[in-house]
């Protein structure tokens, strides 16, 4: 696949710009709550492991003394 990508060398791309599809003046909505909220139970409903509205993960700090 990387060899195939090298076919792009056949194009003269010297002064081409990088593509930017999103308009510079992308539409922005007002910085205010829009009613889309997930309560903790809904947010963790698909989690493989969750407890009391929190995602459970293995310990991420090593050698922690209790």
């Amino acid at each position, binding site marked *: 696949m990387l060899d195939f990508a090298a076919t792009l060398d056949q194009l003269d791309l010297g002064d081409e710009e990088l593509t930017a599809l999103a308009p510079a003046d992308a*539409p922005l909505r007002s910085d205010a709550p829009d009613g889309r909220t997930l309560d903790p139970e809904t947010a963790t409903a698909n989690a*493989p492991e969750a407890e009391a509205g929190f995602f459970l*993960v293995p310990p991420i700090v090593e050698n922690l003394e209790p």
Partner: protein
Amino acid sequence: MSASETWRLPARAIAERVRSGRLSPAAAMESGFDGPGEHWERDVHALLSTDRDARERAAREAPRDAPLAGVPVLLKDNLCTRDHPTTCGSRILSGWRSPYDATVVRRLRQAGAVVVGKGNMDEFAMGSSTEFSAFGPTRNPYDLARVPGGSSGGPAAAVAYGLVPLALGSDTGGSVRQPAAFCGVLGLKPTYGRLSRYGLVAFGSSLDQVGVFARHVGDLAEGYRVLAGPDPFDASMREGPAPDVSGWGAGVSGIRFGWPANLWREGVDGAIVDALERAAAHLERGGATRVPFDFLPGTFAVATYYLLATAEASSNLARFDGIRYGHRHDAEDVGALYSLSRGEGFGPEVRRRILLGTYALSAGYHDEFYMKAQRARTRIAREFHEAFARCELLLLPTTPTLPFRLGEKTEDPLSMYLSDVFTIGANLAGIPGLSVPMGLTRERLPVAVQLLGPADGEPVLLRAARALECEGRTHVMSNGYEREFMWPGSR
């Protein structure tokens, strides 16, 4: 026509009957499941999930005075739905339930449509045959030994065999148009930013578009009209109202269509070249003018795409980590949990593309691959821009081949990627494309052509497709549409 035959009707005719009280949404929906569904689904495997209770509830709740009242619709399984699981054809999301509906799903429901279930797809939309679904392939209803195309193979096959008159897919590099071509139905990839992607699970965010499958041009236009338009939840939407497609039946008189015949001088199946000639002749009879010119070969687009799309995918798919949702392999530490969960949850093609994209973005190779591809993308978009200064649309193949056999390309990724050689350019340039069926070959396989237009060129694409549909009724497409009137018993 008896109630059990309503699956044969166009979506607009179903809606008209529901609005006037002559047909119930439940009857319209079950007609597809009882008739064609019973006959085909076991062999074709277009569906990943459907739930009788959920679809009956959806039918009861559907507004009856709306444009798509009671129209059964199948969704590709990467569009989020509250009432069905959303798996993206992947083990890593097996059983996952979205807490919300995608914007396009919400719009369908508001327009009266009934979501009947979720359609099969290549895992995370990465594939051109639907063989990379973690839940088994979909087969082409015209020849069960052949693929339906992909990645939206399930929705395309379901529309082809008659389960639903309308379906949604997503098109990142051709994933609506290519399966539409292989299954003998219409497939529209709209202009980038015209259909909301809020609730479409992301693959390549600068390329992804939601697309529509239908058997009739008028249904396609109605689907586009209902779905297109601004959405404050998707910051990549185009500003302003979507173009008016109500003139889809206005004909092609005065339209100039580009004819880049250098693209199919070699490597394209003779039946497809023949379909292109027939399509061009139909358009000319309708008053359109052929404008021949040479166009940049599609292999450059394929090379560009498989660097950019994989780079974007490697970033987008980082969210699947086994913590917040999806498959998890329990491990002693978080690093092992990530790698084991992802290694088990993702299939081989998704892993291949994440690796390729990560490599293309990595320090030291970023300029050589990713940046070069971004420059090539600008070059390709300019090529289209210059073409549309000379014509209103381009006529070209959707695919280089007819539907291929299951297993034929799964061991040769580059060969699979090259089946998108004519579709990828539209995604890179953000322009609309429409695959139009042109009947069946002597071997009774669907054959199609593709129409590409400038940004917001959907109205002219639909007019041209309608011209081919009208002409075809008495000529080439009678076989393709005959299928609707053949079933059951005449197979």
